[in-house]
């Protein structure tokens, strides 16, 4: 028998479900531009859920954390990525996918696996968001699947950032977030990472005339 849920918890569950749905949409999306928009939406949901936890648990550092998410994940990163797309002229590019229904089925399997894995931990958590750890892990695994299934450098990076979003959500849902200093460090690393990715896009295109990673398969075990 589940205890009755209050409004905040119910809202959080709705947000978590939204996060999972966005992950699935990303898995099925071909257009690079729309993928970036979806990534930004994932950021919006993260900001909202962090804010909600901050309000219900009265935790000051989570307000900063929410502000940081809003700036970095909703505005800055999608902006950088979109600018890069425009500079590289691949805004409307699409990434041919492996069979979408198969991908969706594998994704569903991953969600079930994630919930199974999260079960023993969720039962220990004392936070209001404890049931959402399974969803956080599912988001991480789905982003991982996306990175494996895609061929374009840009889409792999978006998958990587989506994975980072899942990790962030896992941190808020199990422990009310990591200490602020660590979160700042992670945010900085991520930003530098995206910057380096940007440099790479240009290097890859200069050398290979395309951002298709199929061409990056020369180094083999021989």
């Amino acid at each position, binding site marked *: 028998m589940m205890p009755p849920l209050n409004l905040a918890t119910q809202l959080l569950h709705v947000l978590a479900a939204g996060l999972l749905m966005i992950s699935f949409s990303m898995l099925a999306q071909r257009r690079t531009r729309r993928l970036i928009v979806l990534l930004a939406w994932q950021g919006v949901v993260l900001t909202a859920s962090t804010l909600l936890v901050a309000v219900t648990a009265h935790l000051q550092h989570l307000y900063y954390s929410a502000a940081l998410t809003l700036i970095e994940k909703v505005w800055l990163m999608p902006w950088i990525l979109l600018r890069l797309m425009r500079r590289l002229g691949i805004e409307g590019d699409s990434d041919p996918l492996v069979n979408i229904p198969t991908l969706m089925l594998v994704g569903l399997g991953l969600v079930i696996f994630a919930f199974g894995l999260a079960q023993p931990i969720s039962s220990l958590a004392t936070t209001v968001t404890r049931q959402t750890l399974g969803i956080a892990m599912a988001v991480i695994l789905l982003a991982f699947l996306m990175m494996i299934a895609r061929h374009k450098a840009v889409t792999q990076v978006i998958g*990587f950032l989506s994975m980072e979003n899942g990790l962030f959500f896992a941190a808020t849902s199990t422990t009310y977030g990591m*200490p602020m200093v660590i979160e700042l*460090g992670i945010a900085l690393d991520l930003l530098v990472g995206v910057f380096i990715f940007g440099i790479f896009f240009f290097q890859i295109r200069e050398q290979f005339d395309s951002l298709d990673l199929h061409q990056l398969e020369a180094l083999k075990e021989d």
Partner: protein
Amino acid sequence: MELAWVLGTPLFGAIVLAVLGARRSAAELNVVISLATLIAAAALVLRIIGQGSMTVAHEQFFVDPFNVFLIALTALIGFTTAVFSRPYMRIEQDHGRLNTHRLRLYHSMYQLFMAAMLVALSTNNMGLLWVAMEAATLSTVLLVSLYRTRASIEAAWKYFILCGVGIALALFGTILLYFAAERLLGGEGMRALLWTHLNAAKGQLDPTVIGLAFVFLLVGYGTKVGLAPLHNWLPDAHAEGPTPVSAVLSGLLLNVAMYAVVRCKILAAGAMHSALPGRMLMAFGLFSTVLAAFLLWRQRDIKRLFGYSSIEHMGIITFAFGMGGPLANFAALLHMTVHSLTKSAIFFAAGHASQIAGTQRIDGIRGLLAVSPTVGWGLMLGSLAILGTPPFGVFTSEYMVLITAMRDHPWATPFLLIALAVAFAAIFFKVQPMVFGETDARRLPHPPALVPVFVHLSIVLMLGLYIPPALAQWYRLAASLIG
């Protein structure tokens, strides 16, 4: 105070070299900064010997006999690599493979990389450890692709994505660790992330959560150690990056990642009250050793060859830490030291060898002794040392690992012996024709910097013949801390 100098010097150096790195004298400046870091590290070592373990800066940093010897090793090899890279990069520049702009990037990132590794080694905070490991990856990605060739960009991309995903898993492990500890130690003041506090309270941490956290941490940091089957990035990054970068990746970064794994293993073994974490290390280590030994046969690129050899040796170290106990831990620590010194020496010699031959392909390199005896002997002696030929130090540590394995886990010994024999034959038959034989290659325009090679090899030789009592005491102390 000493620690502030150890961490501050390379950080300051990175900024200075970002501004001045394009000058002709930047290489010398790089050497001076690395020397300053080494001196600071030596002062830190004396302090620890005198006063024992210490925590500084609100317990955020923590130095004990285990990590102080890795800090000293990192500073030492960081310095010798800087010495080696001065003439090496000058030759590369003469060959037109680099321009001054990229040299500036190289010098600045080199120091940043050193700073990140030293922070990772000395921090007490598991979160900061993660941040520093990620920073170390980021600072080397651009170094691996420094030549901007197709192959180097591919290698750097692979390195970035694989290690990025790996380290994301480690972050999840860290979050789980924090979750388990926060209930016990409280979330304020980051105590729940401080290793010293975690270590003190490890017996009461929830075994299920810690077990899961350890799996993620092992796979995550294990990717950076280059443990099979997560090793794919390693040979590419070693082969395609500039040689000084290969030397520090293999000699230092793998050690730092190994250090992170060992710190996590200590916590997991304490929390789970079982040998499972150790068994997992043993399995990963043995698999890496055997797989790498057989893959050595198929390599045609000299730097890839020694990249695979690094996987093999990190496997041996992982296996030894997995067995645990005073003798195996002692052997693992000694092996970390001698492997770092020998492998960086080999990369120095191999780098000059491929400069002489104009190719990294093994069948293109012939008769090094005739052209440049020092390079030839450096490569030959280095290879003999890494293959565990007595009386080099690698023999001592491998022998101790084998002895412990025979006593505690006899089933593993045949695998180890076969892997060592296969690796010996593979490397020896590939190196022998490179060193001896006829050639029409010419000497290098600048005299190669082989002082570091022979300094490293003589330390390794000394460790094989005689371990100074102070050092042995130090290893014993560190081994007892690991448990």
